């Protein structure tokens, strides 16, 4: 397997500052942490001091939410320089971003917005990924989005679009299993079929998170990728399906809103640990090679 990140094939957690003491005290079963890049681009103070201490103890994944790789306008050179500065001093185990856009001209919209999957957007996103990887001097992982709607102009299926991006640029992929489940429910496709079509060899990290439930104009379920609850049971089941095909991978639980106390997050991480442990029982040879 190609090395897409140096994160351990073990549970990780999206870091929240309120859990700093609990994590430094006893992080088990969490083995690695992920931070949102943009929260650590200030001049100094507590955020950078905490990050420095955490990075001495844990592998850290830097996860960008503001680069707008899927955008129509050129990447913001100032933001790219800030990312390079952060990655150069932190030397994270992984850097990832989203197949999405958030900036147009100078307006930043603080959300991950969708793009059509066409030959034209494929070329543009590929060029942006080349630019990021050249600037940072490292491979990046690209994450599949949560979709609430589709573009009539799209000519590529999402797994094929991501596979072709990985082939052209050499980037790895971040498979968000909750996003697969949310998109599959919202757009009416089979989540297992999506996973089976996904280039799992390129996956360097897996994300899990909670979603909310709403309905669309026709009363059909509309799931929202809200990251404010525990991971739903069908998403854990889908994770098992992914891991059975991919082998062990770093698995991250994200909980960004209505953030619970540490023990609740540790329990979610424990569930991810169990899914990985079950896999080792079933696939001793492969897990030994990867671990």
């Amino acid at each position, binding site marked *: 397997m190609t090395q897409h990140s140096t994160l351990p094939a073990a549970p990780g957690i999206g870091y929240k500052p309120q859990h700093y003491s609990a994590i430094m005290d006893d992080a088990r079963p969490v083995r690695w942490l992920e931070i949102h890049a943009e929260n650590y681009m200030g*001049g*100094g103070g507590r955020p950078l001091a905490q990050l420095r201490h955490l990075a001495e103890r844990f592998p850290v994944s830097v996860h960008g939410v503001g680069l707008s790789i899927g955008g129509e306008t050129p990447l913001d050179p100032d933001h790219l320089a800030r990312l390079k500065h952060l990655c150069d001093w932190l030397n994270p185990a992984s850097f990832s971003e989203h197949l999405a856009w958030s900036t147009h001209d100078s307006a930043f919209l603080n959300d991950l917005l969708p793009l059509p999957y066409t030959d034209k957007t494929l070329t543009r996103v590929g060029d942006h990924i080349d630019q990021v990887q050249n600037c940072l001097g490292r491979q990046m992982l690209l994450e599949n989005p949560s979709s609430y709607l589709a573009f009539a102009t799209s000519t590529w299926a999402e797994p094929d679009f991501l596979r072709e991006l990985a082939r052209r640029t050499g980037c790895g992929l971040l498979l968000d299993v909750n996003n697969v489940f949310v998109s599959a429910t919202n757009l009416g496709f089979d989540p297992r079929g999506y996973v089976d079509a996904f280039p799992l060899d390129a996956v360097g990290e897996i994300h899990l998170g909670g979603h909310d439930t709403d309905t669309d104009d026709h009363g059909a379920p*509309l799931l929202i990728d809200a990251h404010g609850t525990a991971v739903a049971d069908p998403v854990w089941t889908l994770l098992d399906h992914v891991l059975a095909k991919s082998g062990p991978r770093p698995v991250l639980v994200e909980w960004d809103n209505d953030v619970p106390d540490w023990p609740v997050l540790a329990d979610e991480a424990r569930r991810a640990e169990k899914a990985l442990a079950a896999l080792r029982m079933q696939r001793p040879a492969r897990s030994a090679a990867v671990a």
Partner: protein
Amino acid sequence: MTSLGADFLPALVDPDLPVPAGLQDGKGRPAGRRFNVYRNNVTVSLMEALEQGFPAVAKLLGPQNFANVARIFVRENPPQSQLMMHYGAAFPTFLAKLPAVAHLGYLADVARLELAMRRAYHAADSTPLDPAVLGALSPDTLAATAFHLAPSVQTLASTWPVHAIWTYTMVQGSPKPQAAPQDVLVMRPDFDPEPHALATGGAAFITSLMNGHSLGAAHDHAVSANLQFDPTETLGLLIAGEAIAALRLEPVE
């Protein structure tokens, strides 16, 4: 739909515009309220960022009024940077001009103080100057000396008792504010910004020092705002707050 920027973006920030054409559900039907998920994510996430950045303003207005004010602000002022830690720099000026909150004259200055504290929180670290270095200077030399202040130092002058209003709002058991103008100094000795009330002229004094003027020149600036201004107390605060980083070789004239 031809362009994300020309079609998707305007409808995203203006709920009165129709949902762009070419967006659909999984069965090829128009996307309808599915588009509202993105509209909602953008507006709500920005409103939440504003509330996190201005907790005292939010408390003074109450949840419903703050939401009304924030919704107008975020639509008129989408972020110009990916760094949400800096979002809302235009909020104090926006509040000062908003007729709906004109009866709360102090609100804009409370927002300025919260912005100053947020800037202090994220400012670069610095090592304080050994106070013994200052103690060794003669009074005449000291008056001619200028400083590099810590990057976290912030100051503001208000015609309202802004420090007392902020404290009364945020710190339980604080005394009721008394009507009086207040200057404020924000320092961050370790990681938590602390606001200090200053005598009138204090903000002019600190601003002058930040601009690289000598202690004597800064004193002159402060006296133009307050004839009785005594620099000793404010200088003591700066030293105790570890806010003086280094001596400046040449004062700025």
